[in-house]
C-alpha cells in the first residue's frame, strides 16, 4: 500500500512498514486463493499500526468484507485510516485494546484475523503503553501481548476462520502453535525468514 498521504511526522509515534510488514504482505498475497475460498464477511486486524496489512487484505479479497482494525495508539488509528483511504480500501478503525470492545458480539464470527504483534522481548513494565512502544514491546519472551490475544482469537474466530500471526524465534513459535492446537486450531508455518 501507498503511504504517501501519511504526514512523515506521524511516524515518530507509529511503526513504519519494515521487513516484518513486507513478509506479512507477501504471505497474504500467497494466501489470496485460500482467503477467497473462505468467503470472509468479517476480517479483523489486532494492532494495525500503519494500516498496511488490513488495507492490503481489504483490497485483495474478491468479495468485499467488513474489515475492522484496532489499535491502542491513537496516532496509529489515525494513520491506519489515512492509509486505507488513500489506497481506496474500506477499513473501519476502533481505538481499543486488542479486541475487547468486540469480544462478546463477534464471538465465533470473525472469518480472518491478522496480527503482527509487538514481539520484541522487553521488560514487562514496557508493555501496555499507548504510544509507539506498543508496536514492539512484547515483554517476557516477546510473548505477553500475544499470550493475551490468543484466547480472544479463539473466542472470535469463526468455525472455518483463519488466524495469521507473525512471530520471531525468541517468541517460541512451537509453543504458540501448541497453545493454538489445544484450542482446536490447525496450524502451519506459511513463511519463515532469517533476518
Amino acid at each position, binding site marked *: 500500500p501507498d503511504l504517501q498521504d501519511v504526514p512523515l511526522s506521524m511516524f515518530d509515534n507509529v511503526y513504519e512498514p519494515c521487513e516484518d510488514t513486507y513478509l506479512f504482505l507477501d504471505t497474504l498475497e500467497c494466501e489470496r486463493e485460500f482467503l477467497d475460498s473462505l468467503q470472509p*464477511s468479517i476480517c479483523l486486524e489486532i494492532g494495525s499500526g500503519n494500516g498496511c496489512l488490513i488495507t492490503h487484505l481489504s483490497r485483495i479479497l474478491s468479495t468485499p*468484507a467488513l474489515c475492522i482494525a484496532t489499535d491502542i495508539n491513537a496516532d496509529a*488509528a489515525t494513520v491506519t485510516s489515512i492509509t486505507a483511504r488513500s489506497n481506496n480500501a474500506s477499513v473501519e*478503525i476502533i*481505538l481499543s485494546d486488542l479486541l475487547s470492545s468486540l469480544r*462478546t458480539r463477534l464471538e465465533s464470527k470473525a472469518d480472518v484475523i491478522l496480527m503482527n504483534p509487538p514481539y520484541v522481548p522487553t521488560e514487562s513494565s514496557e508493555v501496555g503503553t499507548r504510544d509507539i512502544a506498543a508496536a514492539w514491546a512484547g515483554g517476557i519472551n516477546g510473548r505477553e501481548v500475544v499470550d493475551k490475544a490468543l484466547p480472544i482469537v479463539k473466542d472470535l474466530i469463526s468455525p472455518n476462520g483463519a488466524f495469521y500471526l507473525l512471530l520471531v524465534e525468541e517468541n517460541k513459535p512451537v509453543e504458540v502453535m501448541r497453545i493454538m492446537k489445544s484450542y482446536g486450531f490447525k496450524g502451519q508455518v506459511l513463511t519463515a525468514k532469517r533476518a
Partner: protein
Amino acid sequence: MRLLTHNLLMCNRKGCSTNNFPLRINATNVTSESTDFNPDLIRNVLPKLDWAALSQTVGELSLPGLPEACPAADDDTSLQQLHQLIIDTHVKEGELICNGCGRSYPIKNGIPNMLLNEDEL
C-alpha cells in the same frame, strides 16, 4: 464508524454487564457516502447482525429506510436499503453512551475511542 461496526460494539467497562448493548449514539455529524452496492457483502453479514439493536439505533438517529424485518437473502431491494444504512452511513463525530453504566466513548474523525482507564479494567 459505519452502523455495521456500531452493531458489533459493546461497553466492556469492568462490572458493566447489563444493558451494555447497543451503545446509544449521540451524533453531531453523520454522513452518507454512497458506495457500490454489493449484495453478497450484505447477504454475508446478515446472519451476523443484531437486528433489534440496528432497528433501535436507526430509530434513535431518525434515519429513514430500514426494512421492517431482517430481509430475505434474495430480496435485493431491501438488501440495498440496508446497504445504505449499515455501509454508507458513517458517524463522524459524537459519542457512544452505554445505557447500562453511562460511560461515554467519544467518536472523532469517525474513530470510536473504546479505550478504558486503568480503574475501569
